[in-house]
């Protein structure tokens, strides 16, 4: 196996481990809602929350990188440029993640000085990691970009998919730099922070996973490069055509002028349109292949990606995206419900699909099947759907009692949080969270044990055109 693919396996393994940490921290966060005394005085809610959301970002990022390192040698027919640097930085990345997690759990906070931001905590959602660690992540991104772009230059050829990925590396690196500054004015801070969260995570990541899924489709379904590249360009046009100004739906209430209500509402209302096309595409692929490929889990996870994206982004997003309604639902568990479903559909399912594709080749399996992955698939998706359904009930109760009836004060907030419908949602979320955790354990076991007892031929990789 090439050095790039070995590195890919390491990244994918680290991603799956961090997926477990994310799940555990998510379960802990859910416990605080039903037992507020949980770990009180030892680990406050925000620490569990930070671990939950930051590991989500990192495991998905590591999953994307693993996927790219997996496909790179096949796309260019050679080892990536600067692979040695990527190999070193993998261990630096892992060490930094462990150190930051230890700081969050054991140090938790520091005095209100710049030193705290450098050493312990930046206190901005999703990018809480101290600046020293953020520098490390920026360095990893930079080397990742070098690996991709440098390999194209080294090979003196480029494919359409890799051209899109290479161009996407520029905003991927640049937008991450917003993780560093401390901006006193909260309105300005949130303005740029949404560039990081929306344009980095929801635009450059969308393009990156689009490229990864294009490569996966060629491998998994044998789709021709011409078709895949055509669809990738359509996706880029639609994602960035609606997504760049769709950023506006985050600018409704942060102090920005009210023209964002119209712009953000309009462009985000368009977002279900391409997702509907994606559903039709998934049905077409499933029909053509009669739901059978040589790698059933990878195929099912790509289908889950299409449907999850549609339901989480399209259906759950459309409920709360128009400003007149978002005024009630913004910043409630309703948003949480949409966020969980959309992230799961848009990214997590795709990364899990690539994990199975890589394992098939690494372990030389002609086919990937069995019942383990089915259990993992059902438990994870069932748990996730149960969780987002529960959060939807809680969010509706919160928006109704706290905002629409109560008046958004502390007293109204408490009335909403203590409402039986809200609490029902919280208990139910925890129950489905356990189901999801069981799914994770099954997945981890399945990924580690898959094909260990089988001896099979190596599937032929698709040659680059």
């Amino acid at each position: 196996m090439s050095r790039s693919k070995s590195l890919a396996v390491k990244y994918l393994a680290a991603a799956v481990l961090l997926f477990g940490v994310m799940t555990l921290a998510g379960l802990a966060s859910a416990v605080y809602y039903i037992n507020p005394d949980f770990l009180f005085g030892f680990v406050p809610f925000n620490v569990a929350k930070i671990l939950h959301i930051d590991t989500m970002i990192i495991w998905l990022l590591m999953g994307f990188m693993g996927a790219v390192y997996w496909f790179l040698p096949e796309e260019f027919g050679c080892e990536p440029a600067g692979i040695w640097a990527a190999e070193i930085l993998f261990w630096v990345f892992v060490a930094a993640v462990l150190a930051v997690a230890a700081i969050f759990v054991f140090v938790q906070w520091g005095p209100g000085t710049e030193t705290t931001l450098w050493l312990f905590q930046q206190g901005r959602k999703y990018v809480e990691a101290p600046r020293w660690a953020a520098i490390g992540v920026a360095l990893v991104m930079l080397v990742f970009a070098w690996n991709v772009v440098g390999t194209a230059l080294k090979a003196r050829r480029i494919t359409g998919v890799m051209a899109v990925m290479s161009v996407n590396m520029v905003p991927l690196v640049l937008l991450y730099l917003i993780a560093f500054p401390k901006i006193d004015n909260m309105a300005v801070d949130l303005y740029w922070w949404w560039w990081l969260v929306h344009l980095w995570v929801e635009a450059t990541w969308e393009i990156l996973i689009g490229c990864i899924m294009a490569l996966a489709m060629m491998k998994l379904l044998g789709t021709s490069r011409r078709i895949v590249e055509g669809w990738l360009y359509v996706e880029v046009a639609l994602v960035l055509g609606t997504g760049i100004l769709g950023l506006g739906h985050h600018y409704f209430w942060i102090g920005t002028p009210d023209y964002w209500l119209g712009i953000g509402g309009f462009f985000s209302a368009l977002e279900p349109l391409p997702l509907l096309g994606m559903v039709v595409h998934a049905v077409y692929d499933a029909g053509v292949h009669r739901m059978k490929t040589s790698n059933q889990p990878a195929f099912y996870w790509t289908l889950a990606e299409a449907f999850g994206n549609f339901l989480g982004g399209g259906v759950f997003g459309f409920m709360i995206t128009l400003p007149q309604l978002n005024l009630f639902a913004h910043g409630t568990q309703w948003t949480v419900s949409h966020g969980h479903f959309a992230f799961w559909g848009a990214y997590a399912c795709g990364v899990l699909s690539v994990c199975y594709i890589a394992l098939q080749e690494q372990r030389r399996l002609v086919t990937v099947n069995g019942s383990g992955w089915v259990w993992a698939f059902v438990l994870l998706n069932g748990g996730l759907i149960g969780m987002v359904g529960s959060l939807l009930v809680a969010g509706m109760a919160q928006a109704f009692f706290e905002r629409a009836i109560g008046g958004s004060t502390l007293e109204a907030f408490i009335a909403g949080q203590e409402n039986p419908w809200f609490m029902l949602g919280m208990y139910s979320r925890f129950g489905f969270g356990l189901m999801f955790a069981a799914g994770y354990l099954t997945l981890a076991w399945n990924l580690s044990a898959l094909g260990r007892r089988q001896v099979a031929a190596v599937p032929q990789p698709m040659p680059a055109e």
Partner: protein
Amino acid sequence: MPFDDPAFWRAGAISTTVVMSIVLAMLTIDSLEAIAPGGSHVPPYTVINRHIDYAHNAKLGRDMPTIGQDEPLFGRAVEAPEAAALIERGKLVIQSRACIDCHTFMGNGAYYGPDLTKAWLDPAWEAWAAITGAESREEAMVRFLMAPDQYATWQRRMPNLGISRDEAVATVAYLKWLASIDTNGFPIHFGRIKVSE
């Protein structure tokens, strides 16, 4: 047929991205002007010397902040540089304690604690003045922030985050300034409707 040619869609993707990016850049320039301190939507930091309220504007059809008479924080008016220093310190406290991972600011953050956008205006502080033995809203807020675990709030308690008096004062100044920002009517109905028992 051009629709079948990937080059057609590549050109479409590039042109769409370029056009949208240019529009975003133009809107960003305008928005940053509006949200700079002293801009059309964000008062200067010295607004902490004034009375701040939140009222329904019938003409605009939404709630918005109103700036009233002099009402300096802790009874002492501050000049612009001191106000800016307080805001800078307050933001550092908010980031160093990761407040946004329990609370929301303008609805962004975590949902375990209440939204803090209009926390300065919350009617609950009147009761908290009595509970903390403070004579003013700002003093009640400072005492609570310094030792939140000593006061029974409700089932969910805020942990003690080692906030010093200076830090608490800066945080209160920050929250007062924050309440003066025009957030297009968010949060809705704030404090105007009582929760029925």
